[in-house]
């Protein structure tokens, strides 16, 4: 009977150790996932800011082209306005 009790106690201790290990593994896995999440968010934000800058740059270039068209290529301006807004050009 005493042997049985000792064996049960031993089994319990092993189970507790096992549970501790399982929890430690789970926490490590969660930490890793959180780290990956943070890195991914940083990457997304960087890409977003870069894309915003790129849109701003392209728009600025396009604006300058249209400003130049006032003196160099009026037809391009007329086409752009009629195409975008459907207005009729009156010379």
């Amino acid at each position: 009977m005493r042997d049985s009790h000792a064996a049960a106690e031993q089994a319990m201790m092993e189970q507790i150790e096992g549970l501790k290990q399982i929890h430690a593994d789970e926490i490590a896995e969660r930490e890793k996932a959180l780290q990956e999440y943070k890195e991914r968010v940083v990457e997304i934000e960087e890409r977003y800011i870069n894309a915003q800058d790129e849109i701003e740059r392209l728009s600025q270039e396009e604006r300058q082209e249209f400003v130049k068209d006032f003196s160099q290529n009026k037809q391009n301006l007329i086409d752009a306005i009629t195409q975008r807004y459907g207005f009729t050009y009156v010379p």
Partner: protein
Amino acid sequence: MYLSLLISAAIAGEAKFTFLSANEPAPFEGVLFDPEATADLIVAPKEVQLNCDLEIEYRIDLLQTEHQLTIQNMNSRYNALNVEYQQAINAKDLQIENLETVISSNSGVSKWVWFTGGLVAGTAASYSAYRAFNVN
């Protein structure tokens, strides 16, 4: 959005516009935009569309990443619970095995005790009866 672009451009002192009356310098009354304002008006719709698409993509990416984290956490929990469950089952099996061993070993001793006890009691009873009825 267009208005804000125009306002910001106007504040920066870049784009200008004014009102014209009929036959003043133009064939009909209307609004006169300078080249910068006109360029802003032409570019604005495309710029707004691009920014809108970008914003949507950004929000979707963030949500996807967040959901990915939630799924990973749930998977971790599920795996941990699975291992815990398996471990508990193994421990219980071991415990049952131990208890069965104890029971079987105990019942073996008991058989011999009962046998010996019965033998002694039977002999003692027979001897007592013999002594009691064999007085003469």
